[in-house]
């Protein structure tokens, strides 16, 4: 397969990819449909920012945020139904059940584990040990700046953790499981080995203090930007949106069957972090997944990092097979 040169790299020698915004298909349909699927993303972002900025204290609560989050995801699933990016990514009952299983684990098991050994717990222990208070440098800043900082600090840590996962074998093992998904849907971000999901959630934002409303604003930034990484909707996102934020186009390239293309677009919400460090490629892919799109069962997803890790350890440190002399 002939690849496409992007900077110093040749992309798409092992799997089909599309590079460059001009080569990506546009939303098909009448002017209303095209308008909706061009402006939906910025509208949702600014509407939620406005809501959380002005919501009275009696409404600005975590429970409201959870409700909005669920409602927004259901709306996005409706958009996937109406205007899918690729027919081959259409959600099936089995994919929905699998995705929801992982979403459920995220809300239950991972939350329990995070409560004991998550980064917030570790940071609290460090702070208590050294008698540090949270760094209150940012609490006097305007709310939207605080919200941006919360999401940026988290995304920056996630970028390097994610990049590390693609460059260091012990971290790659748990992350590789997430690269066996063969289609993108709105809940696919939750699919992966629990060890990886724990690692990718680590951050150092806990060292800093922010006002509570800033967390709600930051949450809405995550909800209305980061969520589009794994979505099967064709949007004609505005140019500035694609320049600043991660999109399903960027992330589908990251999940493609081409090895070199997977080593790009590592950020969660802010693709400009990838632009800063030279790992951004603008493009998309439809054929996804490692081993030419072999779909892994949940059981294998749970055990794969450990079985593969064990095989690697044995191959490296195990006793070499004794040669049997030929008679």
């Amino acid at each position, binding site marked *: 397969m002939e690849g496409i040169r992007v900077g110093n790299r040749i992309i798409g020698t092992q799997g089909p990819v599309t590079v460059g915004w001009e080569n990506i298909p546009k939303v098909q349909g009448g002017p209303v449909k095209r308008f909706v699927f061009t402006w939906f993303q910025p509208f949702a972002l600014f509407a939620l920012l406005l809501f959380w900025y002005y919501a009275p204290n009696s409404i600005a609560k975590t429970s409201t945020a959870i409700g909005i989050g669920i409602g927004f995801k259901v709306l996005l699933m409706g958009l996937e139904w109406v205007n899918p990016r690729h027919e081959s990514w259409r959600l*099936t009952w089995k994919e*929905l059940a699998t995705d*929801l299983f992982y979403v459920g684990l995220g809300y239950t098991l991972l939350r329990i584990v995070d409560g004991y050994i998550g980064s917030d717990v570790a940071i609290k222990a460090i702070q208590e040990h050294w008698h540090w208070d949270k760094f209150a440098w940012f609490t006097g800043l305007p709310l939207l700046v605080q919200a941006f900082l919360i999401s940026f600090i988290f995304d920056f840590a996630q970028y390097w953790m994610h990049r590390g996962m693609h460059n260091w074998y012990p971290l790659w093992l748990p992350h590789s499981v997430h690269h066996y*998904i063969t289609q993108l849907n709105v809940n696919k971000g939750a699919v992966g080995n629990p060890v990886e999901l724990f690692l990718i959630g680590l951050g150092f934002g806990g060292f800093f203090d922010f006002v509570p409303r800033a967390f709600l604003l930051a949450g809405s930034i995550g909800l209305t930007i980061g969520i589009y990484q794994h979505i099967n909707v064709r949007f004609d996102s505005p140019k500035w949106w694609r320049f600043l934020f991660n999109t399903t186009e960027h992330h589908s390239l990251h999940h493609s069957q081409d090895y070199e293309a997977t080593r790009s677009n590592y950020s969660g919400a802010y693709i400009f972090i990838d632009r800063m460090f030279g790992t951004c490629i603008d493009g998309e892919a439809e054929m996804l997944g490692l081993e030419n799109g072999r*779909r*892994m069962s949940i059981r294998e997803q749970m055990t794969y990092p450990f079985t593969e890790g064990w095989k690697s350890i044995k191959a490296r440190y195990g006793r070499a097979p004794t040669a049997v002399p030929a008679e």
Partner: protein
Amino acid sequence: MNLRFIEWIWHVRGSLALAPGQSNEQAFDRLEPLFGQSGTSHQRTHDTLTFEKRDQAAQDKMSVFDGGVLRIASDATGPVLRYHLISRALLFCFLAPLLFIALGQLTIELGKFEKPPAEAKAGSKDAKKDVVVPLNPVDKFLGAPAPEKPKKDDKDGGGRHKKATPTAAYVFAGIFAVLYVGGRILEDWLVRRLFRRSLLGA
């Protein structure tokens, strides 16, 4: 143990009349492309087609099934395709509520070992934390509501350090119960439609 009474949970059975004048060979020829997907192996005899699937792709129209038998037999009305399909996904979805109920119970049990909130321990520190940071002048100008002093018994204001509750686990147990019922009906209907359309060549 006789599984006959419970195997409907993950076994899907059904029958479809062949088109008038359609032979066994013609019927299986029409159905065979469904079993040419990656990860699928199948064997065919004169009246039986047996298949098995492993790591089936999401895009496979029969991905929910892991194996099964399709047999053509004669009925009073003529030749009929009888199918018996097995789905581990349906079984796991049926069992998933039990897992989430167990996780809910685990959350409750672990909560019993938790120390009570260290309010008394860090009285002075809490008092320091309760000081409300004034809004930035930009936010004041734009009209954002000023933050309130957090109430001592404010359960919602606990934010990231909130005590874990089993509610999410029970909600997911309910979601999977509904998902199972929906899936058992939907997948039965979809596979029947798929076979019918394949047989008729529609």
